[in-house]
C-alpha cells in the first residue's frame, strides 16, 4: 500500500476512528436518532437499548462487574473533573486531602489546583527517572484526612505504566478511594478495576479509535460504594451523576471501539511493540547520543519518547514535516516551557528541548516505520552539522562546564 502523507504517528494525542466504529455509529445519527431518555416511544427505547449494550461492553473492557458503574461523559477531561471534584465535595466532612502525582495530565493537575484554592490539600508525589511512582510513597502520604488517591494508568508523554495494582492494595487497606486516569493504557496494557482495586477510572473514546467528545467515568457501586456530587445540574441522567442528553452515536462508537479492543488488543499490543522496537533499534544504531525517556520495562507498547541530543525538537519536527509527531520542547508550546513530565523525571532542560514523542498506533505499518527511521536519521545528522553544541561535544568540550549567557 502506498504511504499516505503526512504519516500519522501521534496516537497519544488522538486516534483516527476505526472504519468499523464509524459504520456502527452511522445509523444512530439518522434512523435511530432517538433520545435515550425518551420513555414513551420506540425511538427512545432503541437509543436506550444501544446505550445499555454499550455500558455492558465498556464495563467488560475495564473489568467492571456492573454496567451501571459506567457513567458516560464528554471525555476524560470531564471524567477527571467529575471524579476529583465530585468525591472531594461529597466527602468534605470526612476529609480534605487528595494525593496525586506530578506527571498527571492537566485535567487532573488543574482540577487539583482549583480544589486547593477551595481549601483542600493536595500532595503531588514525585516520580523516579523512569517516570514511575513508588507505591510506598503513596502509603506514606496517606493521612486520616485523605479521601482520594489519583494516579494515571499510563503517561501520555513517556508512556510509563504505573503500578496501579500495587497502589490499589494500599488504598484498599487504608480505606481511601483510588481513581485512575486510564485513558492512555486502555487496550494496551492490562487494566482491571476489580483485580486492581480501582474505585474510579476515566476513559475516553478518541484514544482508542472511537470518536472524540465521548468517554466515561467508572464509579464503583459496591465494596465500597463510591458516592459523588454531580458537577452538572439538570435532568439527572447517568444515575444522577451527570446530567445531559446522552451522545448516543458517540456512545455506540465508543462501545464498538471497546469491543474491537476486547477482541484484538492482545495481538495489537504485540504488533505495536514490534513496530516500536523496529524504530528504536534503528535510531539508536545509526545515530549517537540518542536517549530514550521513560521506562523500558513498564511502557506502553506504541510509545517512543527519545531525545536527540544537540538538536532542538521543533526544528526536527519541521525537518520531518512528512511525519506527525510531537515534542517536549518549549519552542513548540505557547508557554515556552519545556515538558513538565520530563522535568519531573529529572531529564535536563537541554534534553527536554531535544525530545520527540512517537505514538505508534493501529494503522501504522512497517513500511511507514522504515520511512520514518530513514527520514529522522538523515535530518538529525543534518541538524547536528548545523549545531554548535554537537561540534563542541565532538571536540570534547563538557557543555555543563561552559558559562552560558542565560537570557
Amino acid at each position, binding site marked *: 500500500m502506498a504511504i499516505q502523507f503526512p504519516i500519522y504517528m501521534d496516537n497519544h494525542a488522538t486516534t483516527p476512528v476505526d472504519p468499523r466504529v464509524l459504520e456502527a455509529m452511522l445509523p444512530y445519527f439518522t434512523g435511530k436518532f432517538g433520545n435515550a431518555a425518551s420513555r414513551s416511544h420506540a425511538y427512545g427505547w432503541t437509543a436506550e437499548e444501544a446505550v445499555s449494550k454499550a455500558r455492558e461492553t465498556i464495563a467488560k473492557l475495564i473489568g467492571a462487574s456492573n454496567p451501571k458503574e459506567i457513567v458516560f461523559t464528554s471525555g476524560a477531561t470531564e471524567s477527571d473533573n467529575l471524579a476529583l471534584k465530585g468525591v472531594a465535595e461529597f466527602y468534605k466532612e470526612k476529609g480534605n486531602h487528595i494525593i496525586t502525582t506530578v506527571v498527571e495530565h492537566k485535567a487532573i493537575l488543574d482540577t487539583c489546583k482549583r480544589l486547593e484554592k477551595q481549601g483542600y490539600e493536595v500532595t503531588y508525589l514525585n516520580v523516579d527517572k523512569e517516570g514511575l511512582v513508588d507505591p510506598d510513597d503513596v502509603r506514606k502520604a496517606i493521612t486520616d484526612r485523605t479521601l482520594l488517591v489519583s494516579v494515571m494508568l499510563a503517561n501520555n508523554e513517556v508512556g510509563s505504566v504505573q503500578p496501579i495494582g500495587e497502589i490499589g492494595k494500599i488504598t484498599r487497606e487504608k480505606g481511601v478511594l483510588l481513581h485512575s486516569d486510564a485513558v492512555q493504557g486502555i487496550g494496551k496494557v492490562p487494566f482491571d478495576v476489580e483485580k486492581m482495586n480501582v474505585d474510579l477510572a476515566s476513559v475516553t473514546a478518541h484514544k482508542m479509535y472511537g470518536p472524540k467528545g465521548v468517554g466515561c467515568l467508572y464509579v464503583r457501586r459496591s465494596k465500597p460504594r463510591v458516592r459523588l456530587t454531580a458537577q452538572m445540574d439538570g435532568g439527572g441522567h447517568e444515575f444522577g451523576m451527570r446530567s445531559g442528553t446522552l451522545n448516543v452515536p458517540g456512545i455506540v462508537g465508543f462501545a464498538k471501539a471497546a469491543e474491537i479492543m476486547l477482541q484484538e488488543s492482545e495481538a495489537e499490543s504485540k504488533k505495536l511493540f514490534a513496530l516500536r522496537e523496529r524504530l528504536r533499534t534503528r535510531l539508536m544504531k545509526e545515530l549517537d547520543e540518542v536517549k530514550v525517556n521513560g521506562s523500558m520495562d513498564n511502557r506502553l507498547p506504541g510509545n517512543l519518547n527519545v531525545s536527540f541530543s544537540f538538536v532542538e525538537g521543533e*526544528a526536527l519536527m519541521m525537518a520531518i514535516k512528512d511525519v506527525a509527531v510531537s515534542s517536549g520542547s518549549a519552542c513548540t508550546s505557547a508557554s515556552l516551557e519545556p515538558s513538565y513530565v520530563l522535568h519531573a523525571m529529572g531529564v535536563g*532542560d537541554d534534553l527536554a528541548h531535544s525530545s520527540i514523542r512517537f505514538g505508534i498506533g493501529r494503522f501504522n505499518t512497517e513500511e511507514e516505520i522504515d520511512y520514518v527511521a530513514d527520514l529522522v536519521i538523515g535530518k538529525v545528522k543534518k541538524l547536528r552539522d548545523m549545531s554548535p553544541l554537537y561540534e563542541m561535544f565532538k571536540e570534547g568540550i563538557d557543555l555543563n562546564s561552559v558559562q552560558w549567557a542565560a537570557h
Partner: protein
Amino acid sequence: MAYSEKLIEHYENPKNVGALDKEDPEVGTGLVGAPACGDVMRLQIKVKDGIIEDAKFKTFGCGSAIASSSLATEWLKGKTVDEAETIKNSMIAEELNLPPVKIHCSVLAEDAIKSAIADFRSKQSARRTLASEPEAQGATPRAAE
C-alpha cells in the same frame, strides 16, 4: 504553526553554516543563548579593512532561530562593522514574518551579531594596546558575552 516561505527557505537551505577560526584576530565570535533555554547561536564574522568579508553560523534552536541566523549572516556580508551594528531584531522578524512567540529567536540573532562585533573589537583594541604599550597587561580578549 504557519511559517513564511522565506523562513522555510532559510531553514531548509541555510546559508553560511560553518565555522571560522576563532583564534584569528580578524574573526569575531559571538556565542549566545543556553542549551537549557533550547537555543544556542554561534555567529562569526571575518573583517578585512573594516568590511565583513565572511560570516558563518551554527545554531541549536527552532526553525525560526536557524532561519534568523542564516538571514543575519547573509545581511552581514559586505557591510562595515558600524553598519552591521545597526541590524535590529525587528528587521529580521519582519523579513521572515516571524510569529509573535518566535520574536525572541530574532532577538537572539541580534545578540549574536552584537556579541561577535564586540569580540572582534576587543581583539582589535587588545592588539592596539599591545602595540602601543608593550608593557601593559591590557585587556584580555574577551570570549563571547
